[in-house]
Protein backbone atom coordinates (compact mmCIF):
# COMPACT_ATOMS: atom_id res chain seq x y z
CA UNK A 1 0.00 0.00 0.00
CA UNK A 2 2.83 2.34 0.96
CA UNK A 3 4.65 1.44 -2.26
CA UNK A 4 1.53 2.17 -4.29
CA UNK A 5 1.18 5.61 -2.72
CA UNK A 6 4.87 6.42 -3.39
CA UNK A 7 4.34 5.55 -7.05
CA UNK A 8 1.36 7.86 -7.22
CA UNK A 9 3.28 10.68 -5.59
CA UNK A 10 6.24 10.07 -7.92
CA UNK A 11 3.96 10.12 -10.97
CA UNK A 12 2.31 13.28 -9.70
CA UNK A 13 5.69 15.03 -9.22
CA UNK A 14 6.87 13.99 -12.70
CA UNK A 15 3.67 15.36 -14.19
CA UNK A 16 4.07 18.68 -12.39
CA UNK A 17 7.71 18.94 -13.44
CA UNK A 18 6.76 18.19 -17.03
CA UNK A 19 4.19 20.94 -17.21
CA UNK A 20 6.40 23.41 -15.38
CA UNK A 21 9.22 22.68 -17.84
CA UNK A 22 6.90 22.68 -20.83
CA UNK A 23 5.61 26.10 -19.78
CA UNK A 24 9.10 27.50 -19.74
CA UNK A 25 10.42 26.17 -23.04
CA UNK A 26 7.34 27.05 -25.03
CA UNK A 27 7.95 30.76 -24.43
CA UNK A 28 9.23 31.96 -27.77
CA UNK A 29 10.28 30.87 -31.20
CA UNK A 30 12.15 32.25 -34.18
CA UNK A 31 11.05 31.73 -37.77
CA UNK A 32 12.65 32.35 -41.14
CA UNK A 33 9.97 33.36 -43.63
CA UNK A 34 10.21 34.15 -47.31
CA UNK A 35 7.66 35.38 -49.81
CA UNK A 36 8.94 32.84 -52.35
CA UNK A 37 9.61 29.11 -52.35
CA UNK A 38 11.67 29.07 -55.51
CA UNK A 39 13.75 31.73 -57.23
CA UNK A 40 15.45 31.89 -60.62
CA UNK A 41 19.16 32.33 -61.10
CA UNK A 42 20.30 35.89 -60.43
CA UNK A 43 16.98 36.86 -58.87
CA UNK A 44 16.78 38.93 -55.72
CA UNK A 45 14.64 37.86 -52.76
CA UNK A 46 14.30 38.46 -49.05
CA UNK A 47 13.99 36.36 -45.92
CA UNK A 48 12.38 37.79 -42.80
CA UNK A 49 13.56 36.71 -39.39
CA UNK A 50 10.47 36.76 -37.17
CA UNK A 51 10.22 36.51 -33.40
CA UNK A 52 7.07 35.06 -31.88
CA UNK A 53 7.25 35.60 -28.12
CA UNK A 54 4.12 33.47 -27.58
CA UNK A 55 2.70 36.08 -25.22
CA UNK A 56 5.80 36.33 -23.02
CA UNK A 57 7.32 39.79 -22.80
CA UNK A 58 10.90 39.74 -24.12
CA UNK A 59 13.29 42.67 -24.23
CA UNK A 60 16.66 41.45 -25.53
CA UNK A 61 17.78 39.05 -28.21
CA UNK A 62 21.00 37.82 -29.75
CA UNK A 63 21.67 35.20 -32.36
CA UNK A 64 23.08 34.18 -35.70
CA UNK A 65 21.63 33.34 -39.11
CA UNK A 66 23.65 31.21 -41.50
CA UNK A 67 23.11 31.04 -45.24
CA UNK A 68 24.50 28.96 -48.14
CA UNK A 69 27.33 31.24 -49.22
CA UNK A 70 28.03 29.22 -52.39
CA UNK A 71 24.51 29.61 -53.70
CA UNK A 72 23.40 33.06 -52.62
CA UNK A 73 25.02 36.43 -51.98
CA UNK A 74 23.85 38.65 -49.16
CA UNK A 75 23.01 42.07 -50.60
CA UNK A 76 22.08 43.76 -47.34
CA UNK A 77 20.33 43.47 -44.00
CA UNK A 78 17.32 45.73 -43.44
CA UNK A 79 16.49 46.84 -39.92
CA UNK A 80 13.79 49.39 -40.74
CA UNK A 81 10.79 47.34 -39.63
CA UNK A 82 12.60 45.67 -36.75
CA UNK A 83 11.18 45.33 -33.25
CA UNK A 84 14.74 45.96 -32.07
CA UNK A 85 15.09 49.67 -31.58
CA UNK A 86 18.63 49.69 -30.19
CA UNK A 87 21.37 47.45 -31.51
CA UNK A 88 24.00 46.26 -29.06
CA UNK A 89 25.75 44.63 -31.98
CA UNK A 90 24.73 45.72 -35.47
CA UNK A 91 24.11 42.82 -37.88
CA UNK A 92 27.61 41.71 -38.76
CA UNK A 93 28.51 39.48 -41.68
CA UNK A 94 31.32 37.01 -41.08
CA UNK A 95 31.70 34.46 -43.88
CA UNK A 96 28.29 32.76 -44.05
CA UNK A 97 27.05 34.03 -40.68
CA UNK A 98 25.12 37.16 -39.78
CA UNK A 99 25.18 37.77 -36.04
CA UNK A 100 23.53 40.54 -34.07
CA UNK A 101 22.22 41.57 -30.64
CA UNK A 102 19.71 44.20 -29.62
CA UNK A 103 17.10 45.33 -27.17
CA UNK A 104 13.39 46.08 -27.26
CA UNK A 105 12.91 48.69 -24.49
CA UNK A 106 10.04 47.85 -22.09
CA UNK A 107 9.49 44.52 -23.79
CA UNK A 108 7.84 42.94 -26.79
CA UNK A 109 5.08 40.36 -26.36
CA UNK A 110 3.77 40.24 -29.93
CA UNK A 111 2.21 42.76 -32.27
CA UNK A 112 -1.40 43.60 -31.51
CA UNK A 113 -3.76 43.81 -34.45
CA UNK A 114 -6.31 46.29 -33.09
CA UNK A 115 -9.04 44.66 -35.17
CA UNK A 116 -8.28 41.36 -33.48
CA UNK A 117 -6.48 42.22 -30.23
CA UNK A 118 -6.64 38.73 -28.74
CA UNK A 119 -4.26 37.28 -31.36
CA UNK A 120 -0.75 38.67 -31.24
CA UNK A 121 1.42 38.53 -34.33
CA UNK A 122 5.14 37.80 -34.51
CA UNK A 123 7.46 40.78 -34.98
CA UNK A 124 10.16 41.29 -37.57
CA UNK A 125 13.71 41.29 -36.27
CA UNK A 126 15.66 41.50 -39.52
CA UNK A 127 15.08 41.32 -43.25
CA UNK A 128 17.92 39.69 -45.19
CA UNK A 129 18.10 40.51 -48.88
CA UNK A 130 19.86 37.98 -51.11
CA UNK A 131 20.68 37.36 -54.75
CA UNK A 132 20.89 33.80 -56.03
CA UNK A 133 24.18 32.60 -57.60
CA UNK A 134 23.86 28.85 -58.29
CA UNK A 135 20.89 26.54 -58.75
CA UNK A 136 19.90 23.85 -56.27
CA UNK A 137 18.45 23.68 -52.77
CA UNK A 138 19.43 26.54 -50.46
CA UNK A 139 19.04 26.14 -46.71
CA UNK A 140 19.01 29.06 -44.28
CA UNK A 141 19.35 28.39 -40.55
CA UNK A 142 19.11 30.18 -37.23
CA UNK A 143 21.75 29.39 -34.65
CA UNK A 144 22.45 30.14 -30.96
CA UNK A 145 19.46 32.37 -30.36
CA UNK A 146 19.12 33.71 -26.84
CA UNK A 147 16.29 35.90 -25.58
CA UNK A 148 15.82 37.67 -22.27
CA UNK A 149 12.49 38.14 -20.56
CA UNK A 150 11.25 41.60 -19.63
CA UNK A 151 11.09 40.63 -15.96
CA UNK A 152 13.64 43.02 -14.48
CA UNK A 153 16.07 40.19 -13.82
CA UNK A 154 17.09 39.39 -17.39
CA UNK A 155 16.00 35.75 -17.26
CA UNK A 156 17.43 34.25 -20.42
CA UNK A 157 16.16 31.41 -22.55
CA UNK A 158 17.64 29.58 -25.54
CA UNK A 159 15.42 29.37 -28.59
CA UNK A 160 15.42 26.19 -30.67
CA UNK A 161 17.06 26.53 -34.09
CA UNK A 162 14.88 26.74 -37.15
CA UNK A 163 15.55 26.57 -40.86
CA UNK A 164 14.08 27.48 -44.21
CA UNK A 165 14.74 25.63 -47.47
CA UNK A 166 14.31 27.34 -50.83
CA UNK A 167 15.01 26.08 -54.32
CA UNK A 168 17.08 28.05 -56.80
CA UNK A 169 15.94 27.23 -60.30
CA UNK A 170 18.35 26.88 -63.22
CA UNK A 171 16.63 29.43 -65.45
CA UNK A 172 17.67 33.07 -65.17
CA UNK A 173 15.62 35.61 -63.28
CA UNK A 174 15.68 39.38 -63.34
CA UNK A 175 13.62 39.86 -60.18
CA UNK A 176 14.82 42.89 -58.27
CA UNK A 177 13.95 43.48 -54.65
CA UNK A 178 12.21 46.84 -54.25
CA UNK A 179 12.85 47.49 -50.54
CA UNK A 180 10.55 48.50 -47.74
CA UNK A 181 9.25 52.04 -47.99
CA UNK A 182 8.98 54.31 -44.99
CA UNK A 183 9.62 57.79 -43.72
CA UNK A 184 12.84 59.74 -44.09
CA UNK A 185 15.46 58.83 -41.52
CA UNK A 186 15.52 60.57 -38.14
CA UNK A 187 18.58 61.30 -36.10
CA UNK A 188 18.96 61.89 -32.37
CA UNK A 189 22.41 62.78 -31.03
CA UNK A 190 24.02 64.04 -27.85
CA UNK A 191 27.53 65.07 -26.88
CA UNK A 192 28.12 63.79 -23.38
CA UNK A 193 30.84 63.36 -20.83
CA UNK A 194 30.55 60.53 -18.36
CA UNK A 195 33.05 58.89 -16.05
CA UNK A 196 31.87 55.50 -17.27
CA UNK A 197 32.59 56.22 -20.91
CA UNK A 198 35.94 56.97 -22.59
CA UNK A 199 37.42 58.15 -19.28
CA UNK A 200 35.10 61.14 -19.05
CA UNK A 201 36.13 62.51 -22.45
CA UNK A 202 33.64 64.08 -24.83
CA UNK A 203 31.70 61.39 -26.67
CA UNK A 204 28.98 61.49 -29.27
CA UNK A 205 26.06 59.15 -28.86
CA UNK A 206 23.39 58.90 -31.48
CA UNK A 207 20.47 56.89 -32.74
CA UNK A 208 19.51 56.92 -36.41
CA UNK A 209 16.08 55.48 -37.19
CA UNK A 210 14.30 54.61 -40.38
CA UNK A 211 11.16 52.51 -40.46
CA UNK A 212 11.47 51.66 -44.13
CA UNK A 213 14.56 50.28 -45.78
CA UNK A 214 16.70 50.94 -42.71
CA UNK A 215 19.79 53.01 -42.02
CA UNK A 216 22.66 52.31 -44.37
CA UNK A 217 25.34 54.52 -42.88
CA UNK A 218 26.01 57.27 -40.35
CA UNK A 219 28.93 59.63 -40.94
CA UNK A 220 30.56 62.42 -38.99
CA UNK A 221 32.45 65.56 -39.93
CA UNK A 222 34.36 67.26 -37.13
CA UNK A 223 35.45 70.77 -38.08
CA UNK A 224 37.57 70.59 -41.24
CA UNK A 225 38.15 66.86 -41.01
CA UNK A 226 36.79 64.57 -43.74
CA UNK A 227 33.50 62.66 -43.41
CA UNK A 228 33.86 59.19 -41.93
CA UNK A 229 31.53 56.37 -40.94
CA UNK A 230 31.03 55.91 -37.21
CA UNK A 231 29.11 53.90 -34.65
CA UNK A 232 27.67 55.03 -31.36
CA UNK A 233 29.21 55.73 -28.87
CA UNK A 234 31.99 57.65 -30.64
CA UNK A 235 34.94 59.38 -28.99
CA UNK A 236 35.17 62.88 -30.44
CA UNK A 237 38.58 63.74 -31.87
CA UNK A 238 38.12 67.41 -31.05
CA UNK A 239 38.12 67.31 -27.26
CA UNK A 240 38.17 71.12 -27.04
CA UNK A 241 34.63 71.17 -28.50
CA UNK A 242 35.60 74.33 -30.33
CA UNK A 243 34.50 73.14 -33.76
CA UNK A 244 31.07 72.26 -35.10
CA UNK A 245 30.15 68.63 -35.54
CA UNK A 246 27.95 67.46 -38.41
CA UNK A 247 26.24 64.10 -38.47
CA UNK A 248 24.80 62.52 -41.61
CA UNK A 249 22.52 59.48 -41.81
CA UNK A 250 21.35 57.83 -45.01
CA UNK A 251 18.91 54.98 -45.57
CA UNK A 252 18.98 52.31 -48.25
CA UNK A 253 16.48 54.29 -50.32
CA UNK A 254 18.97 57.15 -50.55
CA UNK A 255 17.07 59.54 -48.27
CA UNK A 256 19.28 61.34 -45.80
CA UNK A 257 19.33 63.73 -42.86
CA UNK A 258 22.06 66.02 -41.54
CA UNK A 259 22.28 67.18 -37.94
CA UNK A 260 24.63 69.93 -36.77
CA UNK A 261 25.89 70.23 -33.25
CA UNK A 262 27.29 73.60 -32.30
CA UNK A 263 30.62 73.90 -30.51
CA UNK A 264 30.52 74.84 -26.85
CA UNK A 265 31.73 78.36 -26.00
CA UNK A 266 35.22 78.53 -24.54
CA UNK A 267 35.17 77.74 -20.84
CA UNK A 268 36.59 81.14 -19.99
CA UNK A 269 33.63 82.94 -21.55
CA UNK A 270 31.11 80.73 -19.84
CA UNK A 271 28.76 82.80 -17.64
CA UNK A 272 29.30 80.38 -14.77
CA UNK A 273 33.00 81.25 -14.68
CA UNK A 274 33.63 83.43 -11.52
CA UNK A 275 36.87 84.82 -12.99
CA UNK A 276 34.78 86.50 -15.67
CA UNK A 277 32.79 88.36 -13.00
CA UNK A 278 35.98 89.30 -11.12
CA UNK A 279 37.49 90.70 -14.29
CA UNK A 280 34.32 92.67 -15.01
CA UNK A 281 34.43 94.17 -11.51
CA UNK A 282 38.13 95.08 -11.95
CA UNK A 283 37.40 96.79 -15.28
CA UNK A 284 34.50 98.72 -13.72
CA UNK A 285 36.69 99.80 -10.78
CA UNK A 286 39.43 100.84 -13.18
CA UNK A 287 37.03 102.86 -15.35
CA UNK A 288 35.40 104.45 -12.29
CA UNK A 289 38.84 105.38 -10.95
CA UNK A 290 39.81 106.97 -14.27
CA UNK A 291 36.60 108.97 -14.39
CA UNK A 292 37.05 110.05 -10.79
CA UNK A 293 40.67 111.15 -11.43
CA UNK A 294 39.69 113.03 -14.59
CA UNK A 295 36.94 114.91 -12.80
CA UNK A 296 39.30 115.70 -9.91
CA UNK A 297 41.91 117.09 -12.33
CA UNK A 298 39.24 119.17 -14.07
CA UNK A 299 38.07 120.50 -10.71
CA UNK A 300 41.65 121.39 -9.63
CA UNK A 301 42.28 123.17 -12.96
CA UNK A 302 39.17 125.24 -12.39
Amino acid at each position, binding site marked *: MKNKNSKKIFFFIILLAFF*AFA*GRVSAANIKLVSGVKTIGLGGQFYIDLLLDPEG*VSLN*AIEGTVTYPIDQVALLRTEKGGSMISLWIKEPLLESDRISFAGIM*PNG*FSGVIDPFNPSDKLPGQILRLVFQSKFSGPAVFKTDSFLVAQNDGEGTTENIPNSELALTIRAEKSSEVYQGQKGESPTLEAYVIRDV*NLFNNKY*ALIFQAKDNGSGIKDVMIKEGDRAWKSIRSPYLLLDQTRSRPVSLYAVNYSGESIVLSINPTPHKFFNLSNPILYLLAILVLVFVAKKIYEKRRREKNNI
Partner: protein
Amino acid sequence: MSRIFFSKKTWGLVFLAVFFLVPGFVCLGDTISTGDSLSISAVVENNGGGTGGGGGFGGTPTTIRFSGLAYPFGRVTILENGSPAIITVADGQAKFFAYLANLKPGVYVFSIYATDSTGLKSAVYSFSILMKAGTMVTVGGIFLSPTIALDKSEVRRGDPVTVSGETAPYANVSIFFSPTSGQTIFGNTASLGNGRYSFKINTDSFAYGKYKVNGRSILGKSTSATSPSVPLSVKLSSRKKPSGDCETIRGDLNCDGHVNLIDFSIMAYWYHKTNYPNKVDLNKDGRITLVDFSILAFNWTG
Protein backbone atom coordinates in the same frame (compact mmCIF):
# COMPACT_ATOMS: atom_id res chain seq x y z
CA MET B 1 3.37 -5.61 -14.33
CA SER B 2 2.54 -2.62 -12.17
CA ARG B 3 -0.66 -0.74 -12.70
CA ILE B 4 -0.43 2.60 -14.43
CA PHE B 5 -4.04 3.47 -13.83
CA PHE B 6 -5.02 5.20 -10.64
CA SER B 7 -8.15 5.73 -8.69
CA LYS B 8 -10.63 8.41 -9.71
CA LYS B 9 -9.41 10.51 -6.78
CA THR B 10 -5.82 10.49 -8.08
CA TRP B 11 -6.87 11.33 -11.62
CA GLY B 12 -8.95 14.15 -10.17
CA LEU B 13 -5.84 15.51 -8.46
CA VAL B 14 -3.85 15.24 -11.68
CA PHE B 15 -6.58 17.03 -13.63
CA LEU B 16 -6.73 19.82 -11.08
CA ALA B 17 -2.96 20.22 -11.11
CA VAL B 18 -2.87 20.45 -14.91
CA PHE B 19 -5.82 22.84 -14.97
CA PHE B 20 -4.33 25.27 -12.51
CA LEU B 21 -0.63 24.97 -13.20
CA VAL B 22 -0.40 25.07 -16.98
CA PRO B 23 -1.93 28.52 -17.47
CA GLY B 24 0.26 29.83 -14.66
CA PHE B 25 3.46 28.66 -16.28
CA VAL B 26 2.48 29.70 -19.75
CA CYS B 27 2.04 33.24 -18.42
CA LEU B 28 5.50 33.14 -16.86
CA GLY B 29 7.44 36.29 -17.59
CA ASP B 30 4.43 38.30 -18.71
CA THR B 31 5.05 40.46 -15.70
CA ILE B 32 3.75 43.79 -16.89
CA SER B 33 0.09 44.35 -17.33
CA THR B 34 -2.11 47.38 -17.16
CA GLY B 35 -4.59 45.66 -14.97
CA ASP B 36 -7.72 43.89 -15.99
CA SER B 37 -9.66 46.82 -17.43
CA LEU B 38 -7.60 47.44 -20.57
CA SER B 39 -9.47 47.59 -23.83
CA ILE B 40 -8.14 47.99 -27.35
CA SER B 41 -10.48 48.78 -30.20
CA ALA B 42 -10.15 50.14 -33.70
CA VAL B 43 -12.40 51.73 -36.26
CA VAL B 44 -11.75 52.54 -39.89
CA GLU B 45 -12.16 56.28 -40.29
CA ASN B 46 -12.85 56.15 -44.02
CA ASN B 47 -15.25 59.07 -44.18
CA GLY B 48 -13.41 61.04 -46.80
CA GLY B 49 -13.24 64.05 -44.54
CA GLY B 50 -10.53 64.18 -41.96
CA THR B 51 -7.93 66.79 -41.38
CA GLY B 52 -5.46 65.64 -43.95
CA GLY B 53 -1.89 64.88 -43.13
CA GLY B 54 0.36 62.00 -43.82
CA GLY B 55 -0.56 58.42 -43.55
CA GLY B 56 -4.18 59.00 -44.26
CA PHE B 57 -6.58 56.73 -46.01
CA GLY B 58 -9.28 58.68 -47.81
CA GLY B 59 -7.87 61.83 -46.18
CA THR B 60 -8.29 60.58 -42.60
CA PRO B 61 -5.17 60.48 -40.43
CA THR B 62 -4.13 57.34 -38.62
CA THR B 63 -4.58 58.05 -34.95
CA ILE B 64 -4.13 56.31 -31.61
CA ARG B 65 -5.84 57.48 -28.42
CA PHE B 66 -4.86 56.55 -24.89
CA SER B 67 -6.94 56.98 -21.74
CA GLY B 68 -6.81 55.69 -18.21
CA LEU B 69 -5.88 56.35 -14.61
CA ALA B 70 -2.57 57.51 -13.16
CA TYR B 71 -2.28 59.84 -10.10
CA PRO B 72 -3.94 63.21 -9.41
CA PHE B 73 -1.93 65.73 -11.45
CA GLY B 74 0.66 63.03 -12.17
CA ARG B 75 2.81 63.38 -15.28
CA VAL B 76 2.09 60.70 -17.86
CA THR B 77 4.78 59.96 -20.43
CA ILE B 78 4.07 58.06 -23.62
CA LEU B 79 7.06 56.75 -25.55
CA GLU B 80 6.85 55.98 -29.24
CA ASN B 81 9.45 53.39 -30.23
CA GLY B 82 11.46 54.15 -27.09
CA SER B 83 11.53 57.96 -27.40
CA PRO B 84 9.20 60.37 -25.55
CA ALA B 85 6.31 61.35 -27.85
CA ILE B 86 3.75 62.89 -25.45
CA ILE B 87 3.91 64.15 -21.90
CA THR B 88 0.53 64.96 -20.41
CA VAL B 89 -0.79 65.67 -16.92
CA ALA B 90 -3.63 63.72 -15.35
CA ASP B 91 -6.54 65.63 -13.85
CA GLY B 92 -7.44 65.81 -10.15
CA GLN B 93 -9.27 62.49 -10.44
CA ALA B 94 -6.10 60.90 -11.91
CA LYS B 95 -7.70 60.51 -15.34
CA PHE B 96 -5.53 61.09 -18.38
CA PHE B 97 -6.14 61.26 -22.08
CA ALA B 98 -3.71 61.69 -24.95
CA TYR B 99 -3.54 60.97 -28.64
CA LEU B 100 -1.08 60.77 -31.49
CA ALA B 101 -2.31 61.62 -34.96
CA ASN B 102 -0.87 61.51 -38.47
CA LEU B 103 0.96 58.25 -37.87
CA LYS B 104 2.36 56.40 -40.83
CA PRO B 105 1.01 52.85 -41.20
CA GLY B 106 3.30 50.28 -39.62
CA VAL B 107 4.20 48.60 -36.36
CA TYR B 108 4.70 50.90 -33.38
CA VAL B 109 5.89 50.23 -29.86
CA PHE B 110 4.19 52.43 -27.28
CA SER B 111 5.24 52.54 -23.63
CA ILE B 112 3.34 54.43 -20.94
CA TYR B 113 4.35 55.36 -17.43
CA ALA B 114 3.48 58.00 -14.86
CA THR B 115 5.58 60.08 -12.51
CA ASP B 116 4.10 61.13 -9.17
CA SER B 117 4.53 64.37 -7.22
CA THR B 118 7.72 63.08 -5.56
CA GLY B 119 9.34 61.95 -8.81
CA LEU B 120 8.68 58.24 -8.34
CA LYS B 121 7.71 56.32 -11.45
CA SER B 122 5.09 53.67 -12.08
CA ALA B 123 5.83 50.39 -13.82
CA VAL B 124 6.03 50.84 -17.58
CA TYR B 125 3.26 49.39 -19.69
CA SER B 126 4.42 48.61 -23.20
CA PHE B 127 2.76 47.14 -26.23
CA SER B 128 3.44 46.76 -29.95
CA ILE B 129 0.58 47.56 -32.28
CA LEU B 130 -0.05 47.39 -35.98
CA MET B 131 -1.38 50.75 -37.17
CA LYS B 132 -3.29 50.41 -40.40
CA ALA B 133 -3.90 53.34 -42.71
CA GLY B 134 -6.91 55.48 -41.90
CA THR B 135 -7.77 53.80 -38.62
CA MET B 136 -8.52 55.24 -35.20
CA VAL B 137 -7.23 52.94 -32.46
CA THR B 138 -8.41 53.46 -28.90
CA VAL B 139 -6.47 52.03 -25.99
CA GLY B 140 -8.65 52.64 -22.96
CA GLY B 141 -8.91 51.51 -19.37
CA ILE B 142 -5.18 51.80 -18.74
CA PHE B 143 -4.71 51.69 -14.96
CA LEU B 144 -1.08 52.50 -14.28
CA SER B 145 0.53 50.93 -11.25
CA PRO B 146 0.92 52.79 -7.97
CA THR B 147 4.31 54.27 -7.21
CA ILE B 148 6.07 52.76 -4.25
CA ALA B 149 8.80 53.71 -1.79
CA LEU B 150 10.01 52.43 1.57
CA ASP B 151 11.29 54.52 4.46
CA LYS B 152 14.06 51.97 5.05
CA SER B 153 16.13 49.75 2.83
CA GLU B 154 17.03 47.54 5.80
CA VAL B 155 14.79 47.02 8.81
CA ARG B 156 15.56 45.45 12.16
CA ARG B 157 13.20 42.55 12.68
CA GLY B 158 10.35 43.74 14.86
CA ASP B 159 10.65 47.39 13.82
CA PRO B 160 8.00 48.97 11.62
CA VAL B 161 8.52 49.76 7.97
CA THR B 162 6.41 52.29 6.07
CA VAL B 163 5.43 51.85 2.45
CA SER B 164 4.13 54.92 0.64
CA GLY B 165 3.36 56.17 -2.84
CA GLU B 166 0.60 57.50 -5.04
CA THR B 167 -2.26 56.03 -7.00
CA ALA B 168 -5.79 57.00 -8.02
CA PRO B 169 -7.87 58.68 -5.28
CA TYR B 170 -9.81 56.48 -2.84
CA ALA B 171 -8.39 53.26 -4.26
CA ASN B 172 -7.73 50.15 -2.21
CA VAL B 173 -4.01 49.44 -2.26
CA SER B 174 -2.58 45.99 -1.59
CA ILE B 175 1.06 45.76 -0.57
CA PHE B 176 2.98 42.50 -1.05
CA PHE B 177 6.21 41.54 0.73
CA SER B 178 7.62 38.61 -1.22
CA PRO B 179 10.62 36.84 0.33
CA THR B 180 13.21 35.02 -1.74
CA SER B 181 11.64 31.81 -0.49
CA GLY B 182 8.58 31.35 1.65
CA GLN B 183 5.16 32.88 1.90
CA THR B 184 4.28 36.35 0.74
CA ILE B 185 3.01 38.70 3.43
CA PHE B 186 0.49 41.28 2.36
CA GLY B 187 -1.54 44.13 3.75
CA ASN B 188 -4.14 46.62 2.57
CA THR B 189 -4.66 50.34 2.83
CA ALA B 190 -6.59 53.04 0.98
CA SER B 191 -5.42 56.12 -0.86
CA LEU B 192 -6.55 59.60 0.11
CA GLY B 193 -8.31 62.11 -2.12
CA ASN B 194 -4.93 63.35 -3.35
CA GLY B 195 -3.97 59.83 -4.34
CA ARG B 196 -1.36 59.37 -1.63
CA TYR B 197 -1.26 56.23 0.45
CA SER B 198 0.83 55.08 3.37
CA PHE B 199 1.03 51.66 4.95
CA LYS B 200 2.93 50.87 8.13
CA ILE B 201 3.64 47.27 9.06
CA ASN B 202 5.45 45.76 11.99
CA THR B 203 8.06 43.22 10.95
CA ASP B 204 7.61 40.90 13.96
CA SER B 205 6.27 38.15 11.77
CA PHE B 206 8.90 38.60 9.05
CA ALA B 207 11.72 36.09 8.69
CA TYR B 208 15.26 37.40 8.28
CA GLY B 209 16.20 37.81 4.64
CA LYS B 210 15.53 39.75 1.48
CA TYR B 211 12.09 40.79 0.27
CA LYS B 212 10.68 42.40 -2.82
CA VAL B 213 7.92 44.85 -2.03
CA ASN B 214 5.32 45.88 -4.59
CA GLY B 215 1.75 47.05 -4.70
CA ARG B 216 -1.44 47.04 -6.70
CA SER B 217 -4.55 49.23 -6.59
CA ILE B 218 -8.18 48.36 -6.97
CA LEU B 219 -10.76 50.97 -7.83
CA GLY B 220 -14.28 49.72 -8.41
CA LYS B 221 -13.97 46.83 -10.82
CA SER B 222 -10.57 47.90 -12.13
CA THR B 223 -7.26 46.54 -10.93
CA SER B 224 -4.06 48.40 -11.67
CA ALA B 225 -0.81 46.98 -12.97
CA THR B 226 1.67 45.87 -10.34
CA SER B 227 4.12 48.52 -9.17
CA PRO B 228 7.86 48.23 -9.63
CA SER B 229 9.48 46.13 -6.90
CA VAL B 230 11.58 47.77 -4.20
CA PRO B 231 14.01 45.71 -2.14
CA LEU B 232 13.83 45.35 1.63
CA SER B 233 16.15 43.42 3.92
CA VAL B 234 15.03 42.25 7.32
CA LYS B 235 18.18 42.19 9.45
CA LEU B 236 19.52 42.66 12.91
CA SER B 237 19.77 46.43 12.44
CA SER B 238 17.86 49.14 10.56
CA ARG B 239 19.16 51.46 7.87
CA LYS B 240 17.38 54.41 6.35
CA LYS B 241 17.04 54.49 2.62
CA PRO B 242 19.98 56.49 1.26
CA SER B 243 18.80 59.74 -0.24
CA GLY B 244 19.87 60.84 -3.68
CA ASP B 245 20.84 57.31 -4.61
CA CYS B 246 20.47 57.10 -8.36
CA GLU B 247 20.67 53.34 -8.21
CA THR B 248 17.01 53.28 -7.20
CA ILE B 249 16.47 53.08 -10.98
CA ARG B 250 18.51 50.15 -12.16
CA GLY B 251 20.18 51.05 -15.40
CA ASP B 252 20.42 54.80 -14.74
CA LEU B 253 24.18 54.73 -15.28
CA ASN B 254 24.73 58.48 -15.57
CA CYS B 255 22.41 59.28 -12.66
CA ASP B 256 20.15 61.71 -14.53
CA GLY B 257 16.90 60.10 -13.37
CA HIS B 258 16.23 58.46 -16.73
CA VAL B 259 17.14 55.20 -18.40
CA ASN B 260 17.62 56.12 -22.01
CA LEU B 261 19.95 56.22 -25.01
CA ILE B 262 22.81 57.62 -22.92
CA ASP B 263 22.74 54.72 -20.48
CA PHE B 264 22.35 52.26 -23.33
CA SER B 265 25.38 53.75 -25.09
CA ILE B 266 27.51 53.52 -21.96
CA MET B 267 26.57 49.88 -21.51
CA ALA B 268 26.99 49.09 -25.23
CA TYR B 269 30.53 50.48 -25.03
CA TRP B 270 31.39 47.90 -22.35
CA TYR B 271 29.61 44.94 -24.02
CA HIS B 272 31.82 41.85 -23.69
CA LYS B 273 34.75 44.02 -22.52
CA THR B 274 36.74 43.79 -19.31
CA ASN B 275 37.65 46.49 -16.74
CA TYR B 276 34.15 47.93 -16.96
CA PRO B 277 32.89 50.25 -14.20
CA ASN B 278 31.14 48.30 -11.45
CA LYS B 279 27.79 49.98 -11.88
CA VAL B 280 27.49 48.87 -15.52
CA ASP B 281 27.36 45.22 -14.47
CA LEU B 282 23.74 45.40 -13.31
CA ASN B 283 23.36 41.76 -12.27
CA LYS B 284 26.87 41.63 -10.75
CA ASP B 285 27.89 38.43 -12.53
CA GLY B 286 31.29 39.77 -13.58
CA ARG B 287 30.37 40.24 -17.25
CA ILE B 288 28.48 42.69 -19.44
CA THR B 289 26.05 40.49 -21.30
CA LEU B 290 22.55 40.37 -22.70
CA VAL B 291 21.26 40.04 -19.14
CA ASP B 292 22.53 43.51 -18.19
CA PHE B 293 20.92 44.98 -21.30
CA SER B 294 17.68 43.22 -20.46
CA ILE B 295 17.60 44.80 -16.99
CA LEU B 296 18.30 48.19 -18.58
CA ALA B 297 15.55 47.65 -21.18
CA PHE B 298 13.08 46.68 -18.44
CA ASN B 299 13.70 49.98 -16.64
CA TRP B 300 13.67 52.11 -19.81
CA THR B 301 12.07 55.54 -19.31
CA GLY B 302 13.16 57.21 -22.53
